[in-house]
């Protein structure tokens, strides 16, 4: 069968980097084709070339049997390509409905906005992805996972011939992931071809037909999913570092629990923390030398809880004790000064100063260490920055490169690096491995374990249960803003955690559906 999409020798260069180096690719009609590769391998670049957001420096493409050279995203849209980008492109002050149908707003008399149709179709789309928010809500008020679902719903707003999804599940909990897969299968059944980018290999085995591995801008191999294995894919992705990566996860897992010292000293104690008018408080302890996990569904309030502890948002009540002493974090500055830090989930808006160099982003958390009497010491700063980005294996070209130019996963590594540089004693990490490839993930796990072993206290929020189960000494579960349970390492069990996560939604008197 003739491929629906064909790439021949596609090249995309950035100053100092060849993001795509003569990539050949054939996508068969009706398949779900996975793209995998390490952070910075060129997956997003390939997609952006495909949809006309970047213009290729060389090579040729054919789509639906005819030459295809998109110069703007509009060309791709017209050709029938729909995309869910890795980094969201949303209109924060417009409504959910308007965002959803923005590509083709429903009209009356050619110019008037057809509000009824808008609401109706938006509601349909929201239902389709299982997001029950009012279509009139402004997007600025949504959490990161809700935004992700919104992006997916948006791509479904019009039917195309090719649907491209760049890491759509990075922040989703299993429930949303399962629903997403149903949707993708449904879309495929209606004759649409799908390109699917993910770092979650198990998703690829569950969903996809064929998989293409990219490394350093090269197409390494394309294989049928049925004929390969996770280990094989990892080997193709990471090359020589195979062993290290494969073992790292196991090491992390074995260190967890066992490495915890017998006498745990309380680091952070939260009592009756209430946010945004919630009636019930959250209370828990976090000890030095352990990694505690916080699990929950999308919108369960994990992010809100961390932000409130950190002083980034207003608290409505509750007390925080650090090493036994009561503290009042009214501003992130207070928390950071006390050695408590928060790695935020939204790297684009909250984590990085995208237009500034890598070096600047890294040292932002502790400028005192790279300055004397308020004067920056350029050499110290560069050396420090280099040390830390290399520690985290960030793929970078120059320390003067802006953070925006990094691939998504490398941006995430940069954020981790900047907080490690701060050398805080209590680390709260919100979705720390969002968009990070398997190899690097393992290394980060090892790193976090080492921090715990060094006596630091870590609180990790993740929507990936396996991640929490590998990494943590214990897992606390939040459900609709309520702390509903806590499991020690020997009690870890996905089903149990999930049923706890759902508990408040099932038993709640409030009818969740309007």
């Amino acid at each position: 069968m003739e491929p629906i999409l064909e790439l021949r020798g596609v090249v995309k260069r950035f100053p100092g980097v060849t993001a795509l180096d003569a990539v050949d690719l054939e996508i068969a009609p009706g398949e779900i084709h996975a793209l995998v590769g390490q952070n910075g391998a060129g997956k997003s670049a390939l997609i952006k070339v495909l949809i006309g957001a970047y213009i290729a420096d060389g090579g040729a493409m054919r789509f639906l049997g005819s030459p295809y050279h998109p110069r703007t995203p509009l060309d791709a849209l017209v050709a029938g390509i729909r995309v869910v980008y890795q980094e969201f492109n949303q209109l924060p002050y417009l409504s959910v409905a308007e965002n959803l149908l923005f590509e083709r707003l429903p009209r009356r008399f050619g110019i008037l906005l057809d509000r009824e149709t808008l609401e109706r179709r938006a509601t349909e789309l929201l239902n389709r992805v299982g997001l029950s928010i009012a279509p009139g809500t402004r997007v600025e008020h949504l959490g990161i996972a809700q935004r992700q679902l919104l992006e997916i719903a948006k791509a479904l707003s019009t039917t195309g011939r090719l649907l491209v999804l760049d890491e759509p599940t990075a922040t989703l909990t299993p429930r949303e992931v399962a629903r997403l897969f149903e949707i993708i299968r449904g879309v495929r059944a209606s004759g649409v071809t799908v390109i699917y980018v993910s770092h979650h290999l198990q998703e690829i085995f569950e969903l996809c037909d064929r998989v293409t591995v990219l490394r350093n801008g090269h197409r390494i191999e394309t294989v049928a999913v049925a004929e390969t294995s996770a280990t094989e894919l990892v080997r193709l992705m990471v090359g020589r570092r195979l062993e290290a990566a494969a073992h790292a996860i196991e090491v992390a897992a074995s260190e967890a629990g066992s490495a915890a010292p017998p006498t745990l000293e309380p680091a952070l104690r939260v009592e009756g923390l209430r946010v945004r008018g919630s009636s019930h408080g959250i209370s828990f302890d976090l000890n030095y030398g352990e990694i505690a996990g916080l699990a929950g569904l999308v919108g369960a309030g994990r992010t809100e809880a961390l932000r409130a502890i950190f002083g980034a948002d207003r608290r409505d009540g509750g007390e925080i004790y650090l090493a036994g002493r009561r503290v009042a974090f009214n501003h992130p500055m207070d928390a950071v000064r006390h050695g408590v830090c928060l790695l935020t989930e939204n790297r684009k808006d909250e984590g990085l100063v995208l237009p500034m160099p890598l070096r600047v982003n890294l040292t932002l958390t502790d400028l005192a260490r790279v300055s004397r009497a308020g004067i920056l010491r350029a050499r110290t700063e560069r050396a420090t920055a280099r040390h830390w980005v290399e520690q985290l294996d960030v793929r970078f070209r120059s320390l003067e490169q802006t953070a925006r130019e990094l691939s998504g996963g490398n941006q995430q590594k940069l954020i981790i690096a900047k907080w490690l540089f701060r050398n805080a004693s209590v680390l709260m990490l919100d979705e720390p491995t969002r968009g990070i490839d398997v190899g690097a993930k393992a290394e980060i796990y090892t790193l976090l374990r080492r921090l715990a072993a060094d006596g630091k206290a870590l609180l990790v929020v993740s929507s990936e249960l396996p991640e929490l189960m590998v990494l943590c000494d214990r897992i606390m579960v939040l459900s609709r803003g309520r702390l509903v349970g806590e499991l020690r390492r020997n009690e870890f069990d996905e089903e149990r955690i999930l049923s706890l996560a759902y508990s408040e939604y099932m038993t709640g008197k409030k009818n969740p559906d309007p």
Partner: protein
Amino acid sequence: MLNENRGIPDQVAVSEPQRPAHAVVQRVLREAGIGIALLMLIAIFSASAPHFTDESNITNILTQITINLIMATGMTFVILIGGIDLSVGSVMALSAMVAGLVLKAETLPVPVAIVAAALTSVAVGMVCGFINGFVASFWGVPSFIVTLGMLNIARGGALEVTNARTLFEFPNAFNDFGTATLLGMPAIFLVALGLVLLGWGVLTRTVFGRLIYAIGNNEEAVRLSGHDTFIFKVAAFVISGLTVGIGAIVYMARLTIASPILGTGFELNAIAAVIIGGTSLNGGRGSLIGTFLGACLIGVLADGLILIGVGDFVRQMITGGVIILAVILDSYRARIAERTR
């Protein structure tokens, strides 16, 4: 790991949908914006300024805010896309001078001359607006600088047209329009009101309006959605030019002259009305209702302070202080609106 969704309700509420009552409160709080400050000001002046509530004084206020309101309407479009238009005052003078020449053309019968003058004025404004928008968008240069350049070009042009002479002795039919009343309101104010309502409809009810907001929110996202942002950005400046052209005609009718130095500093007044009205200088957020209230606030303040009879210098200081207080008050309103979400 993906098979646990058995037995789990299909639709888990991620958040409760907003109740309509809430939505209304929120909308009023958001759109009305500076309305509370305006009401307070009106209450204070009604109590303290003699003749403030006289019908004739209300007519005065309406007349006095007319020009600013017209210019601020177009300015709202420009600010919503994240731009700014500093040239409105000068372009208004240029429009007026050119239109004044047309109006005085002796070869034309009066009604024709009036219509031709109005069209000329609007055309001059739109051409200047087009240049502003085109240069700013095509080369991606800050509209602040482009319109600052246009400010100088248009002012120089306005002075050059008649070599700095004032044009006057317009047809009576034209001058009468400046003082005409309709339904007890100044006719020129009704023009402004009509423009505001039209603009409001365009911004809230049309696809064009949504795109204006969207570009101010996140131009890149709009581009990635397959829309051509260029023409919309240019259009916003052209609309500003259009209102400037209308403003010029209205101003000429009111003053019965066209002077090359008129309109000096009008840009700050128009921008102030827009920003006081809650539109964000970064674009993407705001409304014409807010602009309307902002223009009213400025007008009421100027009028009331004169009626109270405070000295000029003190009046200027109070004006500055009240403007600041109004936006501070508005920030509390915004916070409350936020909390009642």
